[in-house]
């Protein structure tokens, strides 16, 4: 284990001097939520102290103190992660960016926005919309911070058309482990200028530096949109339809997958059964929700007509249109509530966020379901069919926690091996944190994992930034 120092009263006084008494917390004053993210099954670890920072300068001063005293620092946004990424495994200091929540300004000529990392995704989306613009990444968790989204390279539902968070980050201000402030990237559309440390920082989960300001690319808000729910009898025929939709030049904004089980849970949770469980007197086994954007209704109608032909040939039960304001609100509210709906009626939960080639989705889902039945764990899932990213949840209301963890480990070990066999990746958008580190290592192999560790040492030689995460095995065992 790395040798870290404790926060002594003297160090605490120095930290407090940077942020002031009201934004420094110790002992019982620390918000207990700082000990976990949204996946408490991975354990709770409270820090010795916490600070709410407001400026780059404050973060720099804090890091200088922590670096000089070898105090571990875990950066935290809204704490909505799912792999223990913001959990302070080594204690030390939690540096929370929730008060760095200002949108600093728009450059309407270049369609960019500058903002602080603690701005919530929903607030950025609404503010951009008020400027006639759209921030294309659309992860399901709207109360996550945008800084957190960048730290995990979050994806979301619109990745099929627009790509992921990484594709919209133009520049970052980053505080390094020793307190130096660096600027990465510029507000330009192209660059061929050396190693991209910008892209190294994106998705690094606070292990290489602390992001304190971001410049993001926006696009004009689409003029109109429509979604189609395409229900099928079973998962296999449902997923087989996805490559055909992608090949048809329809340029969908999203293709979301949902099976019957999650639809039922969501309806019970939201109180609105917008997604039907039967269509034309047949039970729906699984559906895809396909969204199109365009410049006028005729364009969308043409796309829907073509989708209708593909769906019919693929054996869909029907194509249902989500066109009115009320139905759109209900449909996307239901879709966004899938995880919350699972959490609401599940005592013990663990998850995986694999991404596999789109045509391998049925193979993986069939495998994981059989595995769940064999091991005695309820498997629930939904995901982004258009990009092969599946959110798989292992759930139990009956098992004791120790037994649940034992069984889930068997499932996870086998499922990640299957994912590798199918040429997939460990995480599509939730990242590695500490929960998935062992699977990352297996997936990328010793050489790549070691290179990651060496890169970490270049940025953070004392290992004080978010210890025990991504590729840092110093706290294992």
């Amino acid at each position: 284990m790395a040798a870290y120092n404790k926060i002594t009263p003297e160090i605490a006084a120095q930290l407090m001097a940077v942020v002031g008494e009201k934004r420094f917390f110790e002992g019982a004053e620390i918000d207990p939520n700082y000990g976990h993210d949204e996946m408490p099954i991975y354990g709770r670890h409270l820090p010795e102290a916490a600070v709410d920072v407001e400026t780059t300068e404050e973060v720099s001063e804090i890091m200088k103190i922590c670096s000089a005293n070898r105090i571990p620092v875990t950066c935290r946004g809204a704490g909505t992660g799912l792999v223990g990424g913001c959990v302070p495994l080594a204690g030390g200091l939690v540096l929370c960016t929730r008060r760095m929540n200002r949108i600093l300004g728009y450059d309407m000529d270049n369609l960019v926005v500058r903002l602080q990392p603690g701005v919530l995704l929903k607030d950025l989306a609404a503010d951009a919309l008020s400027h006639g613009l759209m921030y294309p990444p659309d992860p399901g968790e709207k109360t996550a911070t945008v800084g957190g989204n960048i730290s995990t390279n979050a994806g979301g539902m619109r990745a099929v058309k627009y790509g992921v968070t990484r594709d919209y980050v133009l520049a970052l201000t980053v505080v390094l482990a020793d307190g130096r402030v660096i600027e990465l990237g510029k507000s330009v559309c192209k660059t061929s200028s050396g190693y991209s440390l910008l892209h190294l920082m994106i998705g690094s989960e606070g292990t290489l530096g602390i992001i304190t300001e971001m410049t993001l690319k926006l696009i004009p808000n689409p003029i109109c949109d429509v979604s189609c729910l395409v229900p099928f009898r079973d998962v296999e025929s449902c997923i087989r339809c996805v490559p055909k939709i992608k090949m048809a030049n329809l340029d969908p904004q999203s293709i979301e997958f949902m099976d019957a089980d999650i639809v039922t849970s969501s309806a019970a949770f939201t109180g609105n059964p917008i997604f039907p469980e039967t269509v034309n007197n047949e039970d729906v086994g699984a559906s895809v929700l396909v969204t199109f954007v365009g410049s006028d209704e005729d364009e969308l109608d043409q796309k829907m007509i073509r989708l209708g032909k593909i769906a019919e040939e693929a054996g869909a039960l029907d194509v249902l249109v989500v066109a009115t304001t009320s139905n759109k609100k209900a449909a996307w509210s239901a879709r966004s509530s899938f995880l919350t709906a699972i959490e609401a009626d599940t005592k013990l939960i663990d998850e995986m966020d694999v991404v596999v080639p789109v045509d391998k989705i049925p193979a993986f889902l069939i495998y994981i379901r059989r595995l769940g039945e064999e091991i005695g764990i309820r498997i629930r899932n939904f995901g982004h069919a258009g990009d092969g990213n599946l959110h798989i949840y292992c759930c139990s209301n009956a098992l004791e926690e120790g037994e649940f963890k034992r069984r889930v480990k068997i499932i996870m070990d086998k499922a990640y091996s299957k994912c590798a066999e199918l040429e997939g990746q460990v995480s599509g958008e939730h990242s590695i944190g500490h929960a998935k580190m062992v699977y990352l290592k297996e997936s990328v192999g010793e050489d790549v994992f070691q290179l990651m560790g060496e890169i970490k040492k270049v940025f953070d030689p004392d290992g004080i930034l978010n210890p025990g995460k991504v590729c840092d095995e110093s706290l294992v065992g």
Partner: protein
Amino acid sequence: MLKILVCVKQVPDVDLVKMDPETGNLIRTGVPTLTNPLDLNALEAAVQVKERYGGVITLITMGPPTAESTLREGLAVGGDNAILITGRPFGGADTLSTSYTIVKAAEMKGSFDLIFCGKESLDGATGQMASQLAERFDAALISCCFSIDKISGGKIRATRTLETGREIVEATLPCLITVEKDNFYGRLPSLKAYLASKTAEITMYSENDIDGLDHEKIGVPGSGTIVPRIYPPELPEPGQIIRTGSSRSDVGTLLALLTEKGSI
């Protein structure tokens, strides 16, 4: 074959409507419209009846020309034909003149066995239309309908939701029904029906197209009520937010305040 009438209304998305602080008027310009959500529950109930017993559903609304989109929405999910009553003389109508106008226009299509209405509208929210229409149609009224259990022999049996439980009632047709949403969530239209609804013919009635319409009974002249002023409710004193910097000290401050006020 049952003849079914469903009354629908286009309303502003009230979440987005603001009030002019000077005049007290609602600022509706640029505010998106939607079909009154409770009307969609009523329409779903009608569609379920049609699917089970057979029938023809006529949609009817009164409003500006833009209300056509509400009718097309209804046609996409099971409506067979639609009537739009539109024209300046109908403007400013309260429920008295609206119910009169709706009944006169509906009579142009003959009589109806069943009439479905939303319980109230999102904007006006008077909840008076159903009972007024029932009276004018000389129809029985079953409100708060939880389920429609049987229709046969010119009678309807339904279960109503009461504050204290459920009530099973039977009525002779014609009957007007308002529904609870539990069993009547609106359905999504199929693509085929959605596209067909875009070009479906809609019967348009102006004040001169409706037989026997007494022009003194429509619009503002026919209204029994006037709205002299709309104003926002007075807000209560804002509460105090205790934010001393730590939860421990917040609790201490709260306890001190409650003790001072004699609450604990």
